[in-house]
């Protein structure tokens, strides 16, 4: 079976400065990969490159055997929920239905099959009763679930998520992890940017550690070790608070 994503020594540069370099790896159908690294490490840049929104300086990306732009219909993207204008006049169900746009096409209106898919996706994230409410009236976690529902009803083969667990409640975290597991069982590949190592462990089998360079890519239990984390986050990557371990460094390291 064709891998969902193949990264081959790819690099991205902005205005001549390298934002990300030497990233390689393969993501098979049903796999999930956590992109781990500090802010500015290139996680979002990598997601944008997979979407074909930024040009590559070197190397290549194949999505389901195609160039990223050609495969867009098969790729769903879940942006961070807190980047949206809470005043925007749009209902929850209309946000979810947007996920059907690549299937519906430019000129046609949503048909009953699209409405059913949107309603089912909203049901899956446990927000059916908020269907008619304005998107902006939902909590941050609920908005994140709505955006996930929008991605679900696109019926894509590759799902990209940008910091989906940022500042979300426990219900949302559990729902996200359950839904991602289901999607993977159905052969959907998942790539998510995160700096929450605990969640990465729960939701992903593989990890890609980034700090502009690729530090490591492989099974999460093997690559999440202290040597790699130091290389990713700098000399003091974590602090102990009681019996908890918390990543200390949110800024890019200056090795």
């Amino acid at each position: 079976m064709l891998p969902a994503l193949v990264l081959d020594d790819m690099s991205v540069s902005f205005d001549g400065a390298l934002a990300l370099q030497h990233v390689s790896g393969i993501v098979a159908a049903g796999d999930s990969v956590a992109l781990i690294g500090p802010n500015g490490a290139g996680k979002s840049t990598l997601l944008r490159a997979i979407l074909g929104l930024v040009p590559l300086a070197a190397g290549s990306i194949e999505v389901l055997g195609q160039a990223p732009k050609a495969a867009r219909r098969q790729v769903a993207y879940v942006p961070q929920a807190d980047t949206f204008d809470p005043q925007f006049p749009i209902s929850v169900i209309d946000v979810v239905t947007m996920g059907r746009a690549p299937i519906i096409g430019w000129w046609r209106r949503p048909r009953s099959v699209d409405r059913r898919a949107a309603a089912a996706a909203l049901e899956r994230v446990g927000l059916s009763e908020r269907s008619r409410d304005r998107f902006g009236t939902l909590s941050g976690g609920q908005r994140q679930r709505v955006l996930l529902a929008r991605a679900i009803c696109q019926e894509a083969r590759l799902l990209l998520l940008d910091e989906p667990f940022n500042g979300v409640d426990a219900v949302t975290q559990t729902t996200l992890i359950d839904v991602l597991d289901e999607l993977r069982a159905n052969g959907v590949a998942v790539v998510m940017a995160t700096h929450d190592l605990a969640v990465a462990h729960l939701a992903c089998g593989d990890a890609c550690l980034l700090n502009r360079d690729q530090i490591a890519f492989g099974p999460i239990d093997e690559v999440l070790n202290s040597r790699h984390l130091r290389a990713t986050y700098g000399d003091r990557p974590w602090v102990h608070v009681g019996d908890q371990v918390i990543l200390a460094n949110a800024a890019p390291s200056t090795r």
Partner: protein
Amino acid sequence: MAWLTESFSLPFMQRALVIALIVGAVGGVLSAYVVIRRLAFFADTLTHTVFPGVAIASVLVQPLWIGALIAGLASTLAFTFLSRQRLVEDNAAMAVILTTFFAVGVMVVSRVTTFTNDLITLLFGQILTVDRGDIMASALLGGCAVLLTSVLHRELVARAFDPEGSAAAGRPVWALDLALNVAVTLVVVAALRAVGTVLVLALLVTPAATIRPWVRGVVPMAIGGALVGMSSGVIGLVIAYQASVERDVRLAPGATIVLVMTTVFALGSLAVWARRSIRHRVST
């Protein structure tokens, strides 16, 4: 209701009513998109960049709206190009384009002496002197603008809500932006004769801004905006006419329409504030 029929018994008032309804409806619909895309400053830029077109049309004794349309579209293309190339930040691009076009207009005007009347039309509109041709031009331009936004409605809303997502889905975001910018340009030109460039901005922002807190969708916002625009047009004309006939007070009709719209906006905002404080009291 005698005062209402009486206000519109004269032919010039009937023509004013027709153009006020057209411009109010079209401006109201477009205001929904201007508000969700935060294009108020862009609309303001256009009200200035049509100036050289009007000035040149005036010198060449051509219909003003044709000159305005050409200059408006030229500035829209220039802005969309600069914005897409990311050479400068959008606000700076608009400021450069606004002043450049306006300066050209000033140069043209400073070389002719016969421009005064056209200049007043341009700035403040002359809704009481519109003729059949003006009405046809407004209907045509406004109709095109509404058609453009209706056809692209879902894509325009998706792009306004989530530009990154729109691009990720493979939509040509810059083409959508250009289409909406052109639609706004058409409305600015359509409303020129009725309310003038200084006041057209009100039509392109206030109606949707009034409706926005009350609705959960862009379609109701556009329909509500059109109702606010049209009713403000009628009420403003009636007030201006009655003040002139009954009290011998001459109110500029275009300005009266805008102030009626502002009053509706103020009342709406007051109601939103009241609703909020009642809810707050109930919940505490």
